[in-house]
């Protein structure tokens, strides 16, 4: 039958205690032998393509099945390992089955069971990859409260992998890409107000009542973010020193520089990055791809240098090394915040703001 089934079966690991690090790690490792038709129940035949399988019922193609590891191998969870997910979707882009075949997330530590994790995953069935699906927006964290890093990464893995496959297999039409734009290297001194007015800096303001707190005049979180790639944005925001250091940190790999700052009692950084190294409260989405941030690519900043900038309580420079990110293209900044419900209840809510480097900071089209 299919190559896929054998791949999955071969991943079933027998737990053997031996003098081997993997065996030691296996206390927390979970592997499940799912078969492709559990992800695409309607199909009875699978044909291997590059990176995915077409599923047929009789002669009629009914959808595709993919392994996340082929599409988003660099997205790793709390345990530093990819959450290997088997994903099926129908011809309309509806997810038909989502099965985790391997993860090493230590959810047992926070009192969760594997069943909780499965319940969380089941929410994706029926979601459409053409629509916005995010933690706090269509996906609830109720089943795995506390495992925010795991949830954010799992969400990115499922949607990132499925959307990319949908594009590749033709289920989803790529948005018409605009004429290539190029970041201008010109520098002029610009004030905070200018950067805001021109749209180089975008803002998300969240009132206390937006996160279940008592209404107050002061925002719970007043967040600003910008792509600092153009010197006229980056150097003004960060100052020459920090800007040059961030560019130097990008190094030969290249990439983009995201600046996020905020004031108010709320926090965009949260504390997830302290334990798992992953920022679980914000990520970027661009086309089919999502970009999450790790502590290795983060530098704290405590002020904005642009003239007239307000004081900040939190701030960071975040490097985007991933070659898939196109600084010239539109992206969405996704913020996921915990919301208090009653005295002890907690759920999450997501907020979104799109961003595109304004033309003023790009080279003129020829």
């Amino acid at each position, binding site marked *: 039958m299919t190559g896929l089934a054998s791949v999955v079966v071969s991943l079933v690991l027998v737990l053997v*205690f031996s*003098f*081997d*690090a993997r065996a*030691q*790690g296996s*206390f927390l490792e979970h592997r499940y032998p799912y078969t492709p038709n559990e992800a695409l129940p309607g199909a009875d035949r699978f044909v291997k393509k590059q990176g995915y399988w077409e599923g047929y019922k009789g002669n009629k193609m009914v959808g595709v099945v993919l392994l996340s590891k082929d599409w988003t191998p660099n997205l790793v969870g709390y345990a*530093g390992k990819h959450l290997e997910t088997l994903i099926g979707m129908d011809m309309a882009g509806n997810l038909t089955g989502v099965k985790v075949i391997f993860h090493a997330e*230590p959810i047992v*530590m*926070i009192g969760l069971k594997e069943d909780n994790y499965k319940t969380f995953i089941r929410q994706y069935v029926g979601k459409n990859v053409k629509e916005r699906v995010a933690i706090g927006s269509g996906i609830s964290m109720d089943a795995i409260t506390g495992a925010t890093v795991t949830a954010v990464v799992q969400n990115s893995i499922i949607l990132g992998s499925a959307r990319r496959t949908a594009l590749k297999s033709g289920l989803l039409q790529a948005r018409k890409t605009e004429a290539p734009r190029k970041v201008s290297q010109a520098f002029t001194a610009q004030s905070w107000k200018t950067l805001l007015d021109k749209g180089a800096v975008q803002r998300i303001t969240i009132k206390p009542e937006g996160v279940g707190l008592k209404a107050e005049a002061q925002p719970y979180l007043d967040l600003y973010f910008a792509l600092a790639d153009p010197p006229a944005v980056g150097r003004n925001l960060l100052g020459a*020193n*920090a800007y040059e*250091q961030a560019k*130097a*940190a990008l190094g030969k790999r290249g990439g983009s520089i995201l600046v996020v700052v905020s004031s108010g009692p709320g926090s965009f950084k949260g504390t997830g990055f*302290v*334990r*798992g*190294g992953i920022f679980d409260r914000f990520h970027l989405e661009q086309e089919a791809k999502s970009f999450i941030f790790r*502590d*290795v690519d983060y530098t*704290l900043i*405590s002020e904005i240098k642009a003239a007239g900038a307000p004081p900040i*309580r*939190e701030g960071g420079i975040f490097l985007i090394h991933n070659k898939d990110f196109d600084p010239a293209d539109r992206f969405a900044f996704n913020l996921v915040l915990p919301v208090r419900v009653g005295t002890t209840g907690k759920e999450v809510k997501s907020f979104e703001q799109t961003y595109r480097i304004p033309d003023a900071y790009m080279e003129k089209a020829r």
Partner: protein
Amino acid sequence: MSKKRFNRRDFLKTLGITGAAAGAGLVLPRTILSEHAQKQIFEASTAHAAEKNGGQSYDVKPGQLDPYYGFWSGGHSGEVRIMGVPSMRQLHRIPVFCMDVGSGYGITNESKKLLKGTFVGDTHHVHGSYVNGTYDGKWLFVNDKGNNRVARIRMDYMETDAIVNIPNAQGMHGTFPQRYPKTEWVVTNTEFQVPVPNDASNKANFNKPQNYYGMHTILDAATMGIVCQIMLDENVDLAACDYQGKYSMSTSYNPEKGVTLAEYLAADSDYLIVFHWERIRAALKAGKYKTISGVRVLDGRKGSDLTLRIPVPKNPHGINISPDGKYGVCSGKVSPTCSVVELAKIDEAFAGKIKPEKCVVAQPEIGLGPLHTTFDGRGNAITSVFIDSTNVKWNLDRAVKGEKKPHVHVLDISYQVGHIMATMAETKEADGKWLVSLNKISKDRFLNVGPLKPENEQLIDLTGEKLVIVKDEPAYIEPHDVIMVRRDLVESKVKHRYNMADHPMAVHKNEIVRKGNDVIVRMTANAPVYGFQEVKVKKGNKVTFYVTNHDEITDLSHGFNISNYNVNFVVSPYQTKSVTFTADKPGVHWIYCTNFCHALHLEMRMRLIVEV
């Protein structure tokens, strides 16, 4: 308020003078300030009740970072400390010449190789490596006065990476790196003259102080090898390098070759000794050295063209160069003066065109017991004055124009200051923001913690015309010196994790190798498990553990403590350390993680079973 200050100060001054007189024995200070001068200085110091504050706050809010890294020596604790300035929060302690059972320095094989069994140290002077007259954030150098060593700290990991033992020398003092064009050499001094060599082969000279010598030692910063030593009759304590890469210089308080207090103080005039680097290079090239204890030793005694002796009054202490590179200031210690040396004149003096004493262009009277001088980058010097217990701010130009009292402000400090340092003051980028007065005595300034009291590092706002104390900070044994470096010069150089390949034995695969009586355990640490759940050895086995931390996450360090075996160390992300011991105690000995790592940190443990 001012009355109280008066009383306290008066009391201390009396105590100070009495102390100096008693200590000096035969030689009462002959050049104490006139009544008039004392009155003038005193008025200046009491005036500050109504003065304008420089306006800076030391408060660094939660979640915010300090604008300066402060690198403090730790005196006879043998360590170096990193503080945030101006919050004065202690951020890190770097064990250098001492054992540190927390990190395992002195316990692991890697650190034992550095210490070679000697773990008593006395760090005095921390200085950073330079490029073009300012810090490059690469290395720190620090001396060990106690066991004649100089260590290098690599600033990317903020850990000791080299220690060199310096023969023919004792009382290693006054270490300073080359400032221009970059740090290729580091100089360090001998405060105690000794027979050279100081070993059995030279026993005839053990009790002949006239045959004791001082040494100005030059190290290669990159290799930490000894380039050469310049032998002197004098002792040399503090050291500085100029901003042109031409000279190093050192104060000497014992040209007398004395071995008793009275003898050290016998002469009224001692020296600033200047070392001519180009001639030193030429002399080495020409082979004009003797090899003693494996080191090339050049003769720098009187008559040598390698050295210039500029007479300065009695028992000088610090030598500090102004940030514009123009002047060197020697503080008088037993003389109330500072001697200002114009560095441009040194060339002429070496060429014999002028007498060495003509290099001294000013000798203002600063106060009783001037020790060290620092700079605000705006033309002012600030000198620590020990006996008066003051920081004296004075103007260099006014001194050079001939003013005997070029004082701007005199600040009472609490109490008995030693070193003094302003932010970036040992670079051409001195910014005059903050000043730290490293006071030797805290007395009544803190909660009483028993007979051994902390020192008192007083933080002073340097931005106003007058000096304003904004914070008292207690410090454990016993910072001597400090540099405060702008954050941007350091921050981008400091790493969050090791390069795993740094250690040739980094563990990628867990394994146990048994060879005869040796057991080598190569093991990973990955939150929350070690690479093995148990290791069995036989009583009497020589056991070596290599542990590599495989967690990439920032600030996820693991500990490794073997119960009952006197072993503990910490491995930070991607770091490898090892330890070797004899398994002499049969039984079950739990190895556990001491450094919090994970929600299952307590479960991160394994058995060492020592079988019989």
